C-alpha cells in the first residue's frame, strides 16, 4: 500500500477504503486525543472518533487540499464533538458515562511528548477534572492552539464567555496542581 499522503487522499476520495484506512491509522491517535480531552469520557471519545472518521469519509470529496488533511480532519472532529455536546448538553449521561481520568494514564502514542511524564500526567488528570465548558475551551485554546473567535463559533458561545471559561480553567488547574 502506498503511504504517500497525497496519493492516499486521492485514492480515498475515489472510494478506496484501504487508502482511507491508512489515513485513519495515521490520524486516529490525534483525533482520539482530541475527543478524549474534550469529553473526558473514553467510551464517548471512541464513539465520537468513529463518528468523525465516518463524517470525514462522507465529506472527503470536498477536501481540496488548501490545508493539510490533518488540520481539516481535526477541525471536522471538533465540529462533530461540539455538535454532539450541544445536542447532549442537557441530557443526563450519569447513567451511562463516568469520567475516567485513569484512561489518560495510557502511554501516549506519538509525537509532541515533552515536559516529563509525571507533569503531563498530573496535568491530564487535572484537565479531566475541570467542568466541561472550562475544559473544552482550555483544550482547544491552550493545548490545540485555537483562537477564542473560533472556539466561540464552534461552541456556540460568545467570545467573552470563551475567555472567561479559559481563565477559570487556568485558575482551577493552578489550584489543582498546587495541592
Amino acid at each position, binding site marked *: 500500500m502506498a503511504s504517500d499522503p497525497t496519493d492516499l487522499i486521492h485514492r480515498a476520495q475515489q*472510494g478506496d*477504503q484501504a487508502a*482511507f484506512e491508512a489515513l*485513519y*491509522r495515521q490520524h*486516529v*491517535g*490525534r483525533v*482520539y*486525543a482530541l475527543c*478524549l480531552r474534550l469529553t473526558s469520557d*473514553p467510551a464517548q*471519545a*471512541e*464513539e465520537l*472518533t*468513529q*463518528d468523525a*472518521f*465516518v*463524517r470525514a*469519509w*462522507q465529506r472527503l470529496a470536498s477536501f481540496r487540499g488548501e490545508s493539510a488533511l490533518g488540520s481539516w480532519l481535526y477541525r471536522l472532529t471538533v465540529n*462533530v464533538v461540539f*455538535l*454532539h455536546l*450541544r*445536542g*447532549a448538553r*442537557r*441530557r*443526563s*449521561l*450519569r*447513567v*451511562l458515562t463516568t469520567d475516567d481520568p485513569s*484512561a*489518560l494514564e*495510557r502511554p*501516549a*502514542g*506519538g*509525537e*509532541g*511528548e*515533552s*515536559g516529563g511524564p509525571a507533569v*503531563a500526567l498530573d*496535568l491530564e488528570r487535572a484537565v479531566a477534572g475541570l467542568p466541561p465548558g472550562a475544559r473544552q475551551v*482550555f483544550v482547544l485554546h*491552550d*493545548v490545540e*492552539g485555537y483562537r477564542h473567535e473560533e472556539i466561540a463559533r464552534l461552541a456556540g458561545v460568545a467570545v467573552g464567555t470563551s*475567555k472567561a471559561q*479559559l*481563565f477559570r480553567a*487556568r*485558575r482551577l488547574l*493552578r489550584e489543582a*496542581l498546587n495541592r
Partner: protein
Amino acid sequence: MICPDMEVKLNEYVDGTLSAAERALVAAHAAGCAGCHAAVAELQALLAAAGALPKSVQPSRDLWGGIAARLGQRTTGNVQRAFWTGALAAAAVFAIIVGISRFLPPSTALHRPGGGQGWAAVTADYEQSAAELVATLRTERGRLRPETVALVERNLRIIDEAIRESRAALERDPGNAELRQLFAAAYRQKVELLRWATRVATSS
C-alpha cells in the same frame, strides 16, 4: 494570591494579547507584587505544559471495524438502511431478552438490603435520563429517516412494556432485588437506544 482585579490582565499578559502600554503596566505591577509575580510564573508554566501534552493518544481498541461498517453510507442508501434495520432489530431482540433474563446492572443500590433511598436515586437517574433523551429525540427526529423513526418508536414501545411490567411487579414486591435488576436493565436498554438514536440524529 492574585490581586482581585488582576486575573484577566495577568491571563492576557501571558497570552500576549495586551497592548504594549498595558503590557508594561502589568509587568511593572507584577514586579512589585509577589502574588501576581508568582501567578504569572505559574500561568507561563501551565501554558508550556499544556502545549507540550502528547498530541496523540491511542484508543484502547481498534476502532476501524466500526468505521468500516459505516463507510458505505457515502454512496448507497441501502447500506444505511440495512445498518439501521439490523441494529434496531438487534435492539428489539435484546429488549425481549431483557424481559426474560436476569441481567445484572452494576449499581450496588440494587442489592442493598433496605436500600430504599439508594434505589430511589437509581430509579430517578434512569427516569430523568430517559425523559431528557426523549425530549431531545423529539426535537431531532426530523433529521432521521421516517422508517428509522418508526423503528425506534416500535422498539421503544417494546422496552416500555418491559419497564411497565417490571414496575408493576416491583409495586407488588418492592424489596425484590431481582425485580430491581430487571427494571434497571430495561431502563438502561431504553436509555441506550435513545442515546444511540439521538447521537445518530445529531450527527447526521
